[in-house]
């Protein structure tokens, strides 16, 4: 027992690199790995952005789109790749791979992840998964167009684009991604549980770490379901096993007669057994980070820290028993609706508590409207809309007329598309000074914020109403198919869609301004100093900015207080860092 009291990390041997290659490519430093993850995720995110332009072009201007060569195949391939890239390769990779890697050791006062070598491999496997995913574009048949949910039998039968190689690269890439995630995730969890510095109890951890921790645990337990279903679908595709394939009479696929007896619903259950926790894998780190941003820039402690932690834990646990609310009209056992509607609406309670606590944090605060704070505030309001519309779709009977319509598209873009991305932007503006030692340009940042925040709301809010009308999602063309106007797609809806598309082009273009800011500020930005925001958590207390490999000097910091001692009555400064001792 005596030995366990001594932090291993004091004696941790770090591999100090020398050449450029070992320093920036084969680096074992968690900070470099975080940046590698971040840059790769952003690069692949730009691909997803261009794909979203393609589909918005087609939805908003079907005739022009078709004239420009957007065929149904290209359209369906674009929506599929856009969805998968955003959910997995951008959001999951960025929030856990990048924020997780950068923040966990620094916020906990550790020198690095517990197994830096495995951590390094994790990134390279992730890179491989991205390459395999994009290979779909150069192999015969193009990437898969099965929709990001990849529902069989459709995903592997001719009649869907990309059944030659696209579906194989997609499933293979997912399996590789899961391997990468597992290697990273084991590191995050073990580091958080076993390698904190002295005084850093779990209940003193910043909420960012809590969010990342819960999300990683969810990932380690949920990704297996996706892995197994990817393996089974690959077998179905390649050697004609029948896990998900019942007897089929396909007009387009002569090989389909080989299948018999499988269950398509099994795939859907497994997919969502992964897929629903996946929503929270993306949401929980965002919840955590935004709590920290709000607290720092409002100069006020986060309200109800303990409740926030328990809410994160409760959401994490409940997220495993709500999965089939994605399947209310999938033809599953009718009585499942009662169970899943109830669990789903229960999960709304801890989520609502988080929203209350964010807003109450603003009450009687001293709010500085810095760019990170702007993004944090717009996150809250966007998330409120997305969360409330979730109550529509979670309540089984309300879901019936709305599922598979634009209401769903609007809901999930609000709640797990725009919201986490706003947090990612906020986080980058917040931690960029730590990472580079320089501030991002404030003027460009504000332009970026206003266009993004207003633009995304204009894009997605009206979409809910298209859903009420009954406009179905994943339609290449609403007008042509009916030969004119129809009740579920009146002419006014076509006009609205054109407007949404134009807004989307503008908002998308402004993201390049953000990238310009990232690049230019690296050289031209104002010097930041060690703690430009007056924050309390440990990452701002490193001896150097940016922190060197190993993060801390000879001694690890010792933690004496929680991370939210802002504006403590009677103190001179309006913030007290975590490693400042309490007065006796």
């Amino acid at each position, binding site marked *: *027992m005596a*030995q*366990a*009291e001594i*932090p*291993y990390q004091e004696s941790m041997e770090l591999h100090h690199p020398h050449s450029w290659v070992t320093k920036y490519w084969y680096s074992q430093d968690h900070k470099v790995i975080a940046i590698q993850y971040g840059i790769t995720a952003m690069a692949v995110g730009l691909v997803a952005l261009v794909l979203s332009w393609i589909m918005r072009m087609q939805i908003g201007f079907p005739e022009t789109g078709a004239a420009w060569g957007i065929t149904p195949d290209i359209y369906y391939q674009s929506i599929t790749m856009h969805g998968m890239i955003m959910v997995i390769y951008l959001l999951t990779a960025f929030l856990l791979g990048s924020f997780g890697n950068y923040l966990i050791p620094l916020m906990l006062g550790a020198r690095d992840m*517990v*197994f830096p070598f495995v951590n390094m491999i994790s990134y390279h496997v992730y890179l491989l998964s991205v390459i395999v995913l994009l290979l779909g574009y150069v192999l015969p048949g193009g990437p898969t167009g099965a929709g990001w949910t990849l529902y069989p039998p459709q995903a592997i039968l001719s009649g869907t684009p990309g059944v030659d190689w696209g579906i194989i690269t997609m499933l293979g890439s997912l399996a590789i991604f899961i391997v990468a995630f*597992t290697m990273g995730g*084991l*590191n995050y*969890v*073990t580091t958080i*549980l*076993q*390698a*904190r*510095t*002295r*005084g*850093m*109890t*779990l*209940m003193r951890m910043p909420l960012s770490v809590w969010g990342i921790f819960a999300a990683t645990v969810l990932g*380690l*337990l*949920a*990704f*297996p*379901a996706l*892995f*197994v*279903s990817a*393996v*089974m679908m690959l*077998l179905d595709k390649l*050697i*004609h*096993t*029948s*896990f998900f394939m019942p007897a089929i009479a396909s007009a387009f696929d002569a090989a389909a007669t*080989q299948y*018999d*007896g*499988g*269950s398509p619903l*099994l795939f859907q*259950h*497994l997919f969502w*057994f992964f897929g629903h926790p996946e929503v929270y894998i993306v949401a929980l780190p965002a919840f955590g980070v935004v709590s920290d941003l709000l607290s720092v820039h409002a100069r006020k402690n986060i309200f109800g820290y303990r409740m926030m932690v328990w809410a994160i834990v409760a959401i994490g646990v409940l997220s495993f028993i709500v999965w089939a609310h994605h399947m209310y009209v999938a033809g599953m056992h009718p009585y499942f609706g009662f169970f899943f509607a109830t669990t789903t609406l229960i999960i709304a309670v801890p989520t609502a508590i988080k929203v209350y606590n964010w807003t109450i944090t603003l009450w009687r605060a001293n709010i500085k409207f810095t760019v990170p704070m702007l993004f944090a505030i717009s996150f809250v309001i966007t998330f409120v809309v997305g969360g409330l519309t979730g109550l529509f779709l979670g309540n089984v009977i309300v879901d019936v007329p709305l599922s598979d319509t634009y209401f769903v598209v609007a809901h999930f873009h609000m709640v797990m598309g725009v919201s986490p991305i706003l947090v990612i932007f906020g986080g980058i503006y917040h931690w960029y000074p730590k990472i580079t030692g320089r501030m991002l340009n404030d003027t460009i940042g504000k332009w970026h914020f206003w266009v993004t925040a207003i633009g995304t709301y204009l894009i997605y809010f009206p979409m809910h109403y298209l859903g009420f009308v009954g406009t179905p999602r994943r339609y290449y063309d609403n007008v042509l198919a009916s030969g004119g106007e129809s009740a579920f797609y009146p002419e006014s809806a076509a006009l609205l869609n054109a407007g949404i598309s134009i807004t989307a082009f503008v908002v998308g273009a402004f993201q390049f301004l953000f990238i310009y800011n990232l690049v230019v500020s690296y050289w031209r930005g104002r010097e930041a100093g060690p703690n430009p925001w007056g924050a309390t958590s440990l990452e701002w207390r490193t001896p150097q900015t940016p922190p060197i490999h190993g993060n801390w000097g000879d001694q690890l910091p010792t*933690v004496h207080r929680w991370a939210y001692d802002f504006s403590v009555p009677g103190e001179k400064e309006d913030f007290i860092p975590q490693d400042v001792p309490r007065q006796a």
Partner: protein
Amino acid sequence: MAEASAGHATIIQDWASDVTTFKGVPWGKAMMWIFLLSDTFIFSIFLTSYMTVRATTAEPWPNASEVFSLMAFGHSVPLLLIAIMTFDLITSSGTMALAVNYGYRRDKRKAIFFICATAFFGAVFVGMQMFEWYKLISEGVRPWGNPWGAAQFGSCFFMITGFHGLHVSAGVVYLLIIAYRLHKGVYDKTNFEIVEIVGLYWHFVDLVWVFIFAFFYLW
């Protein structure tokens, strides 16, 4: 002394403490446990899928007891090879437990011997499994069909035992690497917890087999 401090009251104490949550658990061991938890989910979902397709299909399900029988002494003995494989794997688990024990006694020679013995039994297991696959394939069982009923019988069999076999094979390699590194003295500065870590993995492989045996062969 472990028992002495292991009352239920320690749960809150441990989770509320700083530095480490799992007291006395080295990083590598904690990471292996968490990995095994994740792996548990993988095998659980394999088995759940097997249950689902078996219960869903309206085709007859072949009788495992007869499919996996072998002729011995002029009689057809059900599940003979599977029983031998089960006992082989338990034996390897026993030798692994001994290796862990000798590891913590810092008895390097005995630890290496028992690790190698474990690897040997593991290799034998994989060999028997290959024989079993060979026999089934020669009888016409394929992942996409078989002569006696539901196609999912072969699909599930090859997928689940194949995945388990991969784990065993990887385990054999892992064991041999650890034995070699022990021999080279890589771990001399530690208290040989690495043996327990590889042991955890190996026992887990055995554990999975217990479930496969019950659900696939006996059910």
